[in-house]
């Protein structure tokens, strides 16, 4: 039921190519039909899609909780900002470099993380998320401190007839599309299967000869690479960077995006990116919503929290899981109720992730 064996060709065609085509049409349609602010917002969506793709590989597939991927975005963002603002390096060159530096940091954090599982990893990465801003502020002569760093806005190259926002939009989505592919391939590969085996039970995975430490560290490295690229793109899109953008909220929105989109699902990060960027904006727009003296404007936290609770309760597989359910329901409807199920659904069905199972009988454990 998981994506295992999804490279079976007929399933790949249905599960990837059709949505990919739809996605392409929508992608080119958006900048032609939206105003510059909306285009800018959709460029931001791509930034988050990239970061959430990475987090999804780490948490959704290898089963390691990270509340601290914002730290890797910070590494990517500051790599780009410092290289561009201080050394005048072209920003396009800094994007892969940011990813690589973040990946190196990811591996370095992934190694101690090997010994922490479940709740302990959540604690440590939570601390990491909180530590980013003060560390950046501490080295203010290097990072520019609270005041932040300004970058020159990225203009379209080659005399392309595009607005700045449109150019950023295409740049970010191009990067997202390029990075989507290896993520998709990884999931169906030996590596992806190893991750899922580890997620579903380390003991069994070891018994099957999987090197747990290698694959878990790899997941951290790759996840950090995606986060680093996302951080770099974000710095380019905003043309500004400061330590306060890397607060706990950023790391939390990544996790929220991954969960809401659907942990362990291929298309979940896209949905997650959309929600994470647009929900706060819509909350802002809802400023007219009043309940007595309380105004609900600009308070996305409450909305995010409620959305998480509702989804965790009714659809732990996230929006992607819901979409998959709707798709199968539609197909059954079209096939007619009497027809036998073909046993294989065409959507790759996301599965809720289970990390360390709750002890069922602690009594026995302690005797």
């Amino acid at each position, binding site marked *: 039921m998981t994506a295992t064996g999804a490279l079976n060709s007929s399933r790949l065609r249905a599960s990837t190519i059709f949505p990919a085509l739809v996605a392409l049409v929508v992608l080119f349609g958006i900048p032609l039909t939206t105003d510059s602010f909306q285009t800018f917002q959709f460029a931001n969506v791509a930034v988050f899609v990239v970061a959430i793709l990475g987090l999804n590989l780490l*948490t959704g597939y290898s*089963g390691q*909780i990270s*509340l601290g991927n914002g730290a890797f975005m910070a590494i990517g963002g500051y790599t780009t900002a410092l290289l561009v603002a201080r050394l005048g390096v072209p920003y396009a060159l800094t994007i892969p470099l940011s990813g690589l530096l973040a990946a190196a940091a990811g591996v370095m954090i992934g190694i*101690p993380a090997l*010994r*922490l*599982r*479940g*709740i*302990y990893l*959540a*604690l*440590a990465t*939570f*601390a*990491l998320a*909180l*530590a980013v801003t*003060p*560390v950046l*502020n*501490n080295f203010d002569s290097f990072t520019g401190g609270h005041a932040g760093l300004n970058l020159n806005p990225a203009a379209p190259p080659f005399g392309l007839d595009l607005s700045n926002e449109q150019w950023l939009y295409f740049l970010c989505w191009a990067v997202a599309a390029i990075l989507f592919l290896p993520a998709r391939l990884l999931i169906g590969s030996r590596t992806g299967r190893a991750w899922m085996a580890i997620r579903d*039970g*380390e*003991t069994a995975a070891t018994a099957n000869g999987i090197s747990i430490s290698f694959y878990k560290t790899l997941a951290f490295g790759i996840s950090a690479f995606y986060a680093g690229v996302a951080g770099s793109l974000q710095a380019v899109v905003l043309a500004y960077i400061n330590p306060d953008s890397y607060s*706990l909220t950023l790391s*939390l929105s990544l*996790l*929220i995006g991954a*969960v809401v989109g659907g*942990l362990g699902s291929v298309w979940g990060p896209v949905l997650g990116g959309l929600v994470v960027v647009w929900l706060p904006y819509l909350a802002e727009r809802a400023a007219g919503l009043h309940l007595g003296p*309380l*105004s*609900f404007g600009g*308070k*996305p*936290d*409450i*909305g*995010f*929290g*409620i959305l*998480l*609770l509702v989804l*965790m*309760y009714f659809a*732990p597989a996230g929006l992607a899981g819901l979409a998959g359910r709707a798709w199968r329901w539609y197909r059954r409807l079209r096939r007619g109720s009497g027809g036998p199920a073909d046993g294989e659904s065409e959507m790759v069905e996301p599965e*809720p*992730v*289970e*990390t*360390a*199972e*709750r*002890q069922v009988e*602690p*009594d026995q*454990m*302690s005797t």
Partner: protein
Amino acid sequence: MLLAASVIQSFAQQVVSGVASGAIYASLALALVLIYRAMDVANFAQGEMAMFATFVAYTLITQFHLPYLLAFVLTILLAFAGGVIVERAFVRPFEGAPVLTLVIVTLALFSIVNGLAGLIWGYVFKTFDSPFPARSVQVGGVFVGIQDLGVIAVTLVVLAVVFSFFRYTRLGLAMRAAALYPESSRLLGVRTSRMLALGWGLAAAVGAVSGMMVAPIVFLDPNMMQPVLLFAFAAAVLGGIESPVGSVIGGVIVGVLLALVGTYLPGGQNLRIPFGLIVIVAVLLFRPAGLFGRREMKRV
């Protein structure tokens, strides 16, 4: 000689104020441990619940003009009720769910409580008056803030109440049994699910004390408890996340270390939070059961 004396004097002051902050971390750490023992999950919303309770106390004092002591007691009772309600409404539906699900649920609560506080009280920093005078007294040649002594005393009282409750009352005993041995306890007629709700209530009440103690020091705002939560995590992990006594001792150690780091390292104030991260990671790597932990923490 004079220089040496003043160095010792300032060092001693730092230690005392470290113990006072440590007492605050200890209260929140104890709250975390209470819930951890009962359901194997760290409650990421613990700090936010404490922050919310502190705002309630603030409102009782400034809007309803209640005397501090009355507001303090009332807030603890309200926090208890709030904790019970939160557990019944938001956590109970997820009883027995995987760890990741529970972590996400508590993070969702984190978001909701934080947003709600911002919605009701706004993000402007507020001063929360301390019940203790700002003067110092001389104890054995060292000037010690009454504020610090007061915080330590209040925390000691709270801890004494909590530990006596668990040690000497029927209900406390049942809560311990339910947390450690849920299945056996149910066979003895203990309504373990209800015990869980009581545990959340108790944790919220203890957390509320930490919030009301820290607010006069850091200003009251919806994000004030986040560093405190981090240090409380560090304290709980250091003490052994299963051990209530350990969490208290861990809190004091973390408090003193942070005070010294903040004072004697260059750029120390910014390094406090990263230092908390270092404590957590170092303990988990080198002594995963903490100083007082008994059980192996590895879960397969």
